[in-house]
């Protein structure tokens, strides 16, 4: 960590007195070399963390990250920033548990203020059956080594007195509180990993779109890009949102359908919502950013889309769900909304695996939960690319699990594209 110690409170004061003229660019802008040991396609959160951990954990520094736009310009640059480890299924549990532990040390690790705020996440339940399911989930979380508390109605009321407890369709029976859950500053995570990777010698190459993947005798040999051909022995595809297009360059057809997920931000308000609240039955979740905006969203629009914007029926549905849960937000004005492109896998869980092509690896299928996974996804993808073996906590994120039946269907709704 010492080598990365570029920022401190003292430095901020000193630079303030000197007119902030002493800050230097945070990473280099290198020209691509003709060959690297490894290439990472995609300079988003997952790609940058993969490069960072390849350099840091495995000592592999002759790497480039190829980004078609600018670093962190995709879903890491716009999301609802929730960080949690409240999964139920073996295979998901240990992965997200590992990720949350990495989050808890991330600021010290990167010497970068990612504003990780463990403000507590509350999943509401509305029936006896749902209470049983949540108690079971909470027990699974505790068994895994994470935290969970089952709140009854009064317990929820003590924390969230502003909810509508008299709703007749979805009366609030209680909630599952995950105190270590919370939010983080999404851009800072990308920038922190980018800086750390750059410092360890990784070339971060922006405005460099991969246009082809070179394969010879079943083995990857490099990529074609808008800035020339680059050779490499190993290539990682880490481009959730565009996975199908990039994988198609290698002749692969993925179990992925891209869907749109909308989210919304209001004008800045004084602190009013202290936690992350999810209202699953209404398809609504909300938190308040440190700037004061209410950040909320709902479910997918539920049709394949790359438009990066949604349609109005889902906007209306999310607003209605919010008003049902907490009528107090009705006077807040929505400033902006956006639609992110989600890599939806049939069972709702991600993929970190080798491909049938030697030397080509893929990290994709993050559905609508990729943000919290950024640290562990990079950690495990780096392990896979460096050692050719899956990391212990990501060994079930297999590309062939749909064919073999080893599904990770966290919601229990089935393995079909239109169900998650």
């Amino acid at each position, binding site marked *: 960590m010492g080598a990365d110690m570029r920022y401190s409170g003292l430095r901020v004061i000193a630079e303030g007195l000197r007119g902030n003229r002493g800050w230097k660019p945070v990473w280099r802008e290198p020209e691509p070399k003709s060959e690297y040991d490894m290439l990472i396609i995609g300079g988003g959160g997952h790609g940058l963390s993969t490069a960072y951990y390849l350099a840091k954990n495995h000592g592999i520094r002759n790497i480039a990250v190829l980004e078609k736009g600018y670093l962190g310009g995709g879903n890491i640059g716009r999301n609802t920033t929730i960080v949690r480890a409240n999964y139920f299924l073996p295979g998901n549990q240990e992965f997200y548990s590992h990720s949350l532990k990495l989050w808890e040390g991330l600021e010290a690790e990167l010497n970068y203020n990612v504003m990780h705020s463990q403000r507590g996440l509350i999943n509401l339940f509305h029936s006896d059956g749902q209470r049983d399911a949540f108690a079971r989930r909470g027990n699974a979380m505790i068994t895994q080594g994470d935290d969970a508390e089952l709140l009854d109605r009064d317990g929820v009321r003590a924390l969230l007195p502003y909810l509508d407890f008299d709703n007749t369709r979805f009366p609030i029976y209680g909630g599952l509180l995950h105190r270590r859950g919370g939010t983080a500053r999404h851009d800072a995570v990308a920038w922190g990993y980018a800086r750390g990777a750059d410092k360890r010698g990784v070339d971060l190459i922006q405005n460099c779109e991969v246009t082809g993947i070179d394969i010879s005798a079943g083995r990857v040999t490099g990529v074609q890009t808008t800035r020339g051909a680059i050779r490499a022995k190993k290539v990682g595809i880490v481009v959730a949102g*565009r996975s*199908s*297009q990039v994988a*198609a360059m290698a002749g692969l*057809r*993925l*179990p*992925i*359908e*891209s869907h749109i997920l909308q989210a919304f931000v209001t004008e800045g308000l004084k602190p009013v919502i202290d936690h992350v609240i999810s209202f699953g039955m209404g398809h609504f979740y909300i938190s308040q950013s440190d700037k004061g905006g209410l950040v909320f969203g709902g479910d997918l629009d*539920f*049709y*394949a*889309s*790359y*438009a990066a914007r949604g*349609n109005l*029926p889902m906007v209306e549905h999310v607003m209605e769900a919010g008003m049902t849960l907490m009528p107090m937000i009705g006077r807040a004005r929505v400033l902006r909304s956006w639609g992110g492109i989600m890599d939806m896998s*049939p069972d709702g869980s991600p993929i970190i695996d080798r491909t049938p092509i030697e030397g080509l690896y893929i990290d994709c299928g993050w559905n609508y939960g990729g943000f919290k996974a950024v640290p562990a996804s990079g950690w495990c993808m780096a392990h896979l690319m460096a050692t050719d073996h899956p990391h212990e906590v990501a060994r079930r994120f297999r590309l062939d699990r*749909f*064919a073999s039946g080893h599904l990770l269907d966290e919601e229990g709704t089935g*393995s*079909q*594209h*239109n169900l998650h």
Partner: protein
Amino acid sequence: MRITCPLCGDRDRREFTYYGAADYLNRPGMGAPAEAWDAYLHLRDNPAGATRDLWYHEMGCAAWLVVNRDTVSHAVLSVRLVTDAQAEGGAA
């Protein structure tokens, strides 16, 4: 987004339920190998641009539709009944 149902005309998107890519029309035979079922159920071209997918006119005439659509612009290019598409030889 509005979809023109061949039977009901131009209707609001809310009347329709999305099912998935038109791959679902190419159901393998009973004796097909596991790979064919995996491709049918899971693997997708997932194009950014023109696509063909299945929608159900749930709040209208209850017809199954093949919709030609652009996934980048959300433009609906053409809509046919699944029965018509299949009558013309095959499905996809």
